[in-house]
């Protein structure tokens, strides 16, 4: 049972790294980026190519995956996304769905539609036993890495100038501009960073959840659930929501396989109706 | 005189802000009652509470002695209370003909008919046309509301409220934004309202207030500051101070 808890936590942390970029984008720019999963997929495939084909060490490939996705994010944000910010939500949804379809088909064309795997270094494979509980090495690494990332994120938000500019822009973009904060630059950098994190998550997640061209579509709903339940006004909200979702999903699939997935969908619907701003958010109506 | 509209200890809080503070009003049937006060005094909030757009934190609202505190907005309209908005709230793509037709139709209970064409009941159409004529809207009745001049839109805003045949009519700054030369049309219409309709008017234009009102309530910081006839209020030094602030010049 503890193994399940452990696996659930690992899955949850992974989901958090994947989804937090989306949460920030939604909270910051009130923009629904359903294509967020595509950036994760990009990072995943980048890592697969680097490690499997070019022999780059796994831990060296990870930051490269981050940069790759961040770069794509930055370029797309400045060229395409920026035109869609002021449009109604439906348009944003259609736009990002369009991007998803394009990316899925493109990756399918280039990389083929079967699932791909990363060749992990030997010492990351397998598990070791601690007091009778099976601890997967890879999953342990995920928890450590994602935990560190979360702390760094929290520090950036609360201690750095960029962080306070970001928080100001999230609270009220117009006032932030009035204070001289270059909100557009904050948007661009945040979007790039969020996409980079997604890419990193995609790279890390390949081993755990698998990677194929349908990834953005399969996981879109998970990201939406994290953002819905966790709210968009903090880091801790999505973090807790991701953990909840991760543990719930793993435990659900193990203990109650027939119900499994749609328990979490139902949770999302219930939360949306009951507290549209999320279970863990500050409660300010947007 | 029977009481048409009454509030008992009405209060509305937004977090720490008290927008409406223990307001107890009694408005008689057929009254011409004006609600005045400086900006931010909570006049529109009060109207929103009376019509059900906002839920009160505490207190009660009674329409003809009937407790309507928990009633939804559309239910209150059915019971005979209608309002205009300070900023026009109209249907941009509908014509005045359709807009008034909608209001009359709902009132007569045929708003949910799905099997017949709009306008197939002559008595409804007749009443709609009468209202449009009364409000000088006949010449624009087939134009899209969005392209009408502001003065006409304002008239439509009032016409829509009157079309619900309310027994209590709440007018939120009906002359707001209307050019000087068109104001008299609004004033005439307000003056021509049937005597048995109870009218509560929010206004900043003091000429209009004193012309229209038989009773005035002054609202300051969400609470009723003073009430009385126009003469009482005009003479009241405190009211002048409230508008000018303490230490007003000269």
């Amino acid at each position, binding site marked *: 049972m503890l193994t399940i808890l452990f696996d659930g936590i690992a899955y949850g942390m992974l989901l958090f790294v994947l989804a937090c970029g989306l949460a920030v984008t939604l909270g910051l720019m009130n923009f629904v980026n359903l294509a967020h999963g595509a950036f994760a997929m990009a990072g995943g495939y980048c890592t697969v190519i680097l490690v499997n084909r070019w022999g780059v060490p796994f831990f060296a490939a990870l930051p490269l995956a981050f940069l790759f996705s961040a770069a794509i994010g930055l370029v797309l944000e400045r060229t395409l996304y920026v035109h869609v910010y002021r449009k109604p939500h439906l348009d944003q949804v259609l736009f990002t769905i369009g991007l998803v379809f394009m990316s899925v088909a493109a990756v399918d064309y280039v990389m083929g539609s079967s699932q791909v795997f990363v060749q992990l270094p030997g010492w990351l494979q397998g598990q070791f036993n601690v007091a009778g509980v099976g601890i997967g090495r890879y999953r342990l690494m995920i928890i450590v890495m994602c935990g560190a990332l979360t702390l760094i994120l929290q520090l950036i938000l609360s201690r750095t100038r960029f962080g306070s500019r970001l928080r100001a822009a999230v609270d009220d973009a117009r006032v932030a501009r009035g204070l001289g904060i270059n909100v557009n630059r904050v948007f661009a950098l945040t979007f790039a960073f969020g996409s980079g994190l997604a890419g990193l998550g995609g790279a890390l997640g390949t081993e755990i959840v698998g990677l194929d061209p349908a990834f953005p579509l399969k996981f879109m709903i998970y990201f939406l659930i994290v953002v819905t339940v966790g709210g968009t006004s903090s880091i801790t909200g999505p973090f807790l929501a991701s953990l909840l979702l991760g543990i719930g999903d793993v435990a659900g699939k193990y203990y109650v396989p027939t119900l499994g997935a749609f328990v979490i969908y139902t949770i999302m619907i219930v939360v*949306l*109706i009951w507290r549209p701003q999320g279970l863990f958010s500050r409660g300010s109506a947007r | 005189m029977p009481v048409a509209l009454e509030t008992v200890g009405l209060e509305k809080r937004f977090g720490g802000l008290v927008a409406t503070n223990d307001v107890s009003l009694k408005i008689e049937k057929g009254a011409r009652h004006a609600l005045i006060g400086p900006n931010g005094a909570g006049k529109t909030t009060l109207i929103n509470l009376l019509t059900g757009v906002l839920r009160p934190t505490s207190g009660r609202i009674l329409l003809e002695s009937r407790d309507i505190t928990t009633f939804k907005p*559309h239910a209150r*309209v059915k019971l005979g209370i209608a309002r205009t908005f300070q900023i026009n709230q109209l249907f941009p793509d509908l014509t005045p003909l359709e807009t008034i037709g909608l209001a009359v*139709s709902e009132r007569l209970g045929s708003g949910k008919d799905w099997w017949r064409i709009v306008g197939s009941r002559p008595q409804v159409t007749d009443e709609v046309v009468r209202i449009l004529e009364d409000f000088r809207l006949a010449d624009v009745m087939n134009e899209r509301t969005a392209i009408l001049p502001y003065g006409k839109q304002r008239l439509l805003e009032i016409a829509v409220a009157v079309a619900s045949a309310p027994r209590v009519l709440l007018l939120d700054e009906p002359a707001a934004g209307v050019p000087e030369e068109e104001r008299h049309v609004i004033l005439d219409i307000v003056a021509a309202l049937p005597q048995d309709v109870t009218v509560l008017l929010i206004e900043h234009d003091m000429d209009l207030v004193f012309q229209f009102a038989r009773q005035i309530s002054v609202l300051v910081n969400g609470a009723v500051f003073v009430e009385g006839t126009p003469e009482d209020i005009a003479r009241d030094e405190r009211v002048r101070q409230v508008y000018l602030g303490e230490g007003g010049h000269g």
Partner: protein
Amino acid sequence: MSSLPLQAEAGARFAARAAWHPLEVVFWAVALGSIYLLPGRHLILTEIAILGLFALSLDLILGYAGIVSLGHAAFFGFGAYTAGLLAKHEIITEPLLALLVSGAATALLGFVTSFLVLRGSDLTRIMVTLGVALVLREIANRYAGLTGGADGLQGVEIKPLFGLFRFDMFGHTAYCYSLGVLIVLFLLARRIVHSPFGLSLQSIKGNVLRASAVGIPVNSRLVTIYTIAAAYAGIAGALLTQTTAFASLSVFDFDRSADLLLVLIIGGTGYLYGGLIGAIIFKLMQDYLAALTPQYWPFWIGLLLVVIVLVGRERISSWTHPLRTLASRLDWRSHRTQSSVLATGGP
């Protein structure tokens, strides 16, 4: 106080709103004529009719009531599987009857889920409707014993329509059947949108605050139209099952809901024909592109969506405006009475 010409004008105006424009007559004449004129294309015409009905159902809530739904496929799929199960287990073998029952069942589903879309912003509605569609897909997937799971519902046999017309492999019966259903439901929808109820929906879409201030029970009206739209979508899904004798999980696919929005963007919303015109164009486009690149056709759909949004949805849909103004100009029955009486202004 002689306002009789005014009343007559008002009455005539209202009547003109609902009057049949010549282009409408042409449209349906062509549609009926296609039965005889295009006998070799009945299969794709059936698909167009079904897609058109599905799009019509979304137009009712999106174009007239302003409810944004990204999960309308939930109703389509539910109707499809209901019809499939009714036929497979021989509970109701007469297709038309099974169709009506499927529609009623889907209406019930629509009614039950309608409260989910009453509250919240557009964004909330998008996510909630998406969630509902995914839940239904998941249910259909899980209960594979009932639904056939990923393999789809096998062994569905559709009995002849009215006991007389066998569903042939050229789609003749299928097309006449689907077109007939479409026409009947279209006429019903046309009545509804031109009724006081329909007008109240448009007012809710235009300004919900004013709508309730006029005495309209907003939630009750929205629930009603949502239920009706669900029934329409369910019937469309049932038609698909009955004309193909098969139902698979793809009826619940997110792609279907997304394609539907695209159909309505192409054709325009709020005038009932948008879904039909959009369906024709979409299907023809799909046919053409799928022949070119069968596997990667979603790429072109995606590109189209991106381009449409960047160019502007309004600008895309406005290509149908000339059609509508042309229609009103072609209207030989002049409802513009002498307005000189009114031009002199009021008293």
